[in-house]
């Protein structure tokens, strides 16, 4: 098996194991608490509105915003790590259909793997810092994935047309 396929298959399964471990940890230790915070803070803000207490209302709403922001990203990270892992494995299995030299295929495989790790990592870092750096990391990671996938698709199409020409 070629190096590029090994990178995609081994890297993909390792990423799937990592994404599932993260999801399991999150489901056991964090998710229920996060949902409780989201629900109670939103209910608290409306209850404060009923009591005509704007200070508590605003602080509860702010707590809701922060909890929802973190929750959405943590669920996204779990889903994207596993989704991208499956994409890596499936592409690894069919990577012999990409009709480029092995060096270029290895480059594309590395681009896919790096993007698949870094893109959700950037999203996860957004829960720690609201600055531009985590967002830039996430955008860079997704750009790696899209560019490498486009390159792989071009390799498949090239093979298809060369096969037709050969026929």
């Amino acid at each position: 098996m070629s190096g590029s396929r090994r990178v995609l298959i081994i890297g993909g399964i390792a990423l799937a194991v990592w994404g599932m471990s993260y999801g399991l940890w999150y489901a056991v230790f964090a998710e229920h608490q996060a949902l409780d915070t989201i629900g109670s803070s939103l209910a608290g803000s409306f209850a404060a509105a009923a009591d005509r207490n704007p200070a508590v209302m605003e602080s509860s709403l702010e707590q809701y915003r922060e909890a929802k922001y973190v929750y959405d990203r943590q669920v996204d990270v779990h889903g994207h790590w596993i989704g991208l892992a499956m994409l890596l494995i499936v592409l690894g299995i069919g990577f012999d259909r990409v009709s480029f030299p092995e060096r270029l295929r290895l480059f594309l495989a590395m681009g896919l793997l790096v993007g698949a790790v870094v893109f959700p990592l950037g999203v996860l870092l957004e829960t720690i810092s609201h600055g531009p750096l985590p967002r830039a990391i996430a955008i860079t990671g997704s750009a790696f994935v899209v560019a490498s996938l486009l390159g792989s698709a071009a390799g498949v199409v090239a093979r298809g047309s060369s096969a037709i020409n050969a026929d």
Partner: protein
Amino acid sequence: MPTAQTMIDTSVPRESERVVFAPLSARRLLLLGGIGLILTGMIFGDIFAVFTLHQNAAQVGANLAAAANGALAGNRHIVLANFQNVGAFLENRGTKVDTHVHMIDFGYLALLLAILQPWVAFAESVKKKLAWIFLAGAWLLPVGVYLIHYVGLAHSPVRTIGWASIAADFGGLLVLIVTFGCLLGLWMHFRGERVSPADRLLADRSSAGRVLFAGGVALVLLGFFHGAYYAAADLYKHEAEDYSLLAQMSAGAAAGARPVVNNALTEYGQLQGAKAVNIAAHAHSVEFGLLAIMLAFFQPYVRLRASWKRRWAGVLLLGSLLLPVCVLLEMKYGLVAGGIADFAGLLIIFALLAMWIGILRYTGELDASVACSSESRVPQ
């Protein structure tokens, strides 16, 4: 002129195929179990979309409106009671979405592991055990998640997590252990410099397989571009609007301004709809793309005429494109687009079912040929 019989791929299965795809072998268990999981998850998703999703969203909206009106009237008891209802409806919806998603994703993972089985350097008996454990975990997690809403915290030893959650987490752990085991087996294979086994699944270049592979890659790319566009153009805007509308609702209620509350409630409902359809379109496009690519590899096992294999591949791709597009159009065209999306889901289910039946025919043929060859070896 080819006869009907010759139009079916009737090549005699090779000896290696009889071993790799033997009855109750790891590959067969994972392949049939995986497609079974995907089909069940999709049928469940379609039933959920038709009978529960919209009704649930309406209930959430009605209870949120009642809570806002309670705040307007200065009655915190009404507010809290209605938010408790909102929480229950959201939990009901969330657990059903999770059941649907996890069942399908575990099905995908099962298909991937089925393809990789010849490279996993364990004895077949070990691989078979791992396959059974994987399937047990892959069913336990979604069933456990489904039951969370109904079982709640009854008799639970833990304050925040009920028995259904514990069962679901245990199912997830089983899947995780098996996936890690397969990773170990693959690593041992590559480390030992073993010769790669010949596998006709990976050598197949039939027209149905090529169409599914190319269509799948196109769907994945389409889903990625849509996701990137949504993240760049709308995601942060939607998050800001979510907070701003809730702030308007609560501030309007505190000030006794009913029109402000009503406007914010209407806009909030539309915003939730816009977020949901964008996320669903992105996720479905990528997932159906992955499914098409995986099914491309299994075409040699689909015992149907070549023309029917192409037709079912076309039906699957048509449904896979139509569903996310119509889900996106739901905001503009409402139930008409929703109905077409549900129909597209049915197209995918039918195509998948047809391929599954084709694979079952292949297994029957393979088992019959094994029985025949063993009978012929019996001394007369």
